[in-house]
């Protein structure tokens, strides 16, 4: 046991001595949170829009004035024909076209409701989501105003149409994705590289001839990184709370426990990678390409799994990050308990056991 702690102490020295890597490890979550947070910002300014007013009456003019009056939009062109919408989007001059149906005022006063169609260029999904939300907000504020002054119960329905990417899903909740990404990256990448480094520098030879058991070597390698990863998870949660006002709705304890499970999973993948190669470069490439990309692309972090082709959906189901992101979203945003996410948790446990088993089986007590 003393030998084991001696080993852990050595690992901690390695981590602390390599200042640059340590700063990167601790800095990544913060930088990434800020990047994602402010790139996916909900602030828009002076967005070019077009108006297609097929009614051209008092109320539509007022709504247009409201839109122009806000600091968010600038009306750059007026269309007279609905057919021109496609063309103006293709030119890329505007992000949104607001279409008022014919006889807008009459319909509103006689039938109590009228429609405005909001067509937006959703090839830039997040942005178009924001633009549409802002427009809707302005319209509904105007409706309220109208109802107050005229003592009526008018309703203006914004009909939203996203073109080029119809099933737009909110990417709002990037925090779960970042947690999944960072934990996978730090845990798997760092352990695999640190084990392979020992092989590359020849120190593994010295460790192998010692009475240290493979189990001790592996756990000793992994333990400091578990702590480091938990530190990262905490940093992300704190930032999401204080910088982005995103509270954890569910149990914080359960959340940390699930994080720990996911960290163990990532670590066992890292160990497995390290036992399959002798070069730090290969270990790094496999960790980055093999783990980071699936975590970003095939987990529902950025692209909704429901929109993927069937084959990719299956692929997502055999990759662990998907389950972790479902769990995290469940706990943080919906505030659910274990009874709603037991299946995903079970899947993570199974993955962990599988990879850990493979890793221990593949760890060699000899060279080559």
């Amino acid at each position, binding site marked *: 046991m003393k030998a084991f702690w001696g080993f852990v102490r050595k690992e901690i020295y390695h981590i602390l001595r390599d200042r640059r890597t340590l700063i990167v490890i601790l800095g990544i979550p913060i930088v990434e949170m800020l990047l994602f947070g402010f790139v996916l910002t909900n602030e828009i300014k002076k967005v070019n829009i077009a108006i297609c007013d097929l009614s051209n009456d008092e109320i539509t003019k007022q709504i247009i004035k409201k839109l122009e009056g806000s600091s968010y939009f600038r009306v750059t062109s007026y269309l007279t024909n609905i057919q021109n919408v496609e063309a103006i989007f293709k030119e890329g001059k505007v992000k949104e076209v607001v279409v008022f149906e014919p006889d807008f005022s009459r319909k509103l006063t006689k039938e109590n409701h009228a429609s405005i169609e909001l067509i937006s260029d959703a090839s830039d999904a997040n942005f178009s989501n924001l633009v549409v939300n802002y427009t809707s907000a302005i319209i509904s504020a105007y409706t309220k105003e109208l109802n107050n002054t005229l003592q009526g119960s008018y309703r203006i329905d914004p009909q939203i149409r996203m073109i080029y990417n119809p099933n737009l899903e909110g990417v709002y909740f990037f925090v779960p994705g970042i947690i999944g990404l960072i934990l996978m990256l730090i845990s798997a990448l760092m352990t695999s590289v640190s084990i392979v480094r020992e092989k590359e*520098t020849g120190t593994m030879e010295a460790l192998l*001839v*010692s*009475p240290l058991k493979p189990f001790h070597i592996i756990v000793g390698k992994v333990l400091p990184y578990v702590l480091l990863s938990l530190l990262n998870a905490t940093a992300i949660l704190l930032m999401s709370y204080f910088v982005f006002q995103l509270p954890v709705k569910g149990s914080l304890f359960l959340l940390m426990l699930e994080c720990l499970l996911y960290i163990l999973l990532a670590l066992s993948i890292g160990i497995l990678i390290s036992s399959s190669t002798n070069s730090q470069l290969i270990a790094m490439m496999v960790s980055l390409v093999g783990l980071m990309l699936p975590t970003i692309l095939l987990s529902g972090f950025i692209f909704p799994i429901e929109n993927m082709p069937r084959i990719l959906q299956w692929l997502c189901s055999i990759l662990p990050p998907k389950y972790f992101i479902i769990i995290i979203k469940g706990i943080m945003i919906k505030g659910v308990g274990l009874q709603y996410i037991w299946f995903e948790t079970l899947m993570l446990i199974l993955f962990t056991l599988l990879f850990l088993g493979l890793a221990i089986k593949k760890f060699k007590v000899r060279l080559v």
Partner: protein
Amino acid sequence: MYRVTNLFKKYNQVAALSNISFEVYPNELLGFIGPDGSGKTTLFRILATLLLPDSGEVKFMNYDVVDDFQKIRRYLGYMPGRFSLYADLTVEENLNFFATIYGTSVKENYDLIAEIYSQLEPFRTRPAGKLSGGMKQKLALCCALIHRPTVLILDEPTTGVDAVSRKEFWMLLRKLKQRGVTILVSTPYMDEASLCDRIVLMQKGKIMSTDVPERLIASYPVKLYAAFGDNTYVIKSAISSLPECQMAYLSGRKVHFTMKPSHHPREIAEHLTKLGIENFRIEPIAPTVEDYFIYRMINE
């Protein structure tokens, strides 16, 4: 200590060791001498339980290197050919680390390494990666010794180390031997052979001979001569082109050569004079292990 019988090892169809048999006696300093690629490292890794032999048997005391590797590892002090300490840990931390993973402490076995470590003491807090080559080897030796091993296996410890440090290192090994440690050491330098109790000459994965260095030299079968001169390259090519010469090679700043039976070196001298070479001198010389090695290599 070790008994090796009919050991074979192949890497991808290429024989690294073939039919190796030898014995290591307790408390001897056994040198394994041979050029790069002669199989020394492979052999040492098998002895250190780091590689599996293809066939043959290797026993350490009564343990088998394949089945009882865990038990053997407690008795072993192994120093791999490459510098294998942690470059980012200090001298002291490296030593402490190797002591703890063997379940002992530096204090407990300090007497064994005291002499070597005292030279490292001034650099205690320096990262191991920033030591000089000779110092690195001394630290590696300390780390391999800190758990008081019964047998010490050193894979080319003096390669890449300057001549003075090499000599010093061998002195340390002699002293360790006096303290009862059995030492197996490999080296590509023939001149280090005379510092061993016994030597195993290796060539292309085979053992050429195993004996006390003096006896190997004594078994040199013919008379050896040396030619001194201004331009040894010219002398060497002149001598080797003569029909009376059996073999000739450069050794340091002189040419070593042997004669075919019933010829005398006087004939060589006459030829050299005829070829217009002046200022040379031919003397009989006592062979060294290197001469023995070359003789065996050429005549086999």
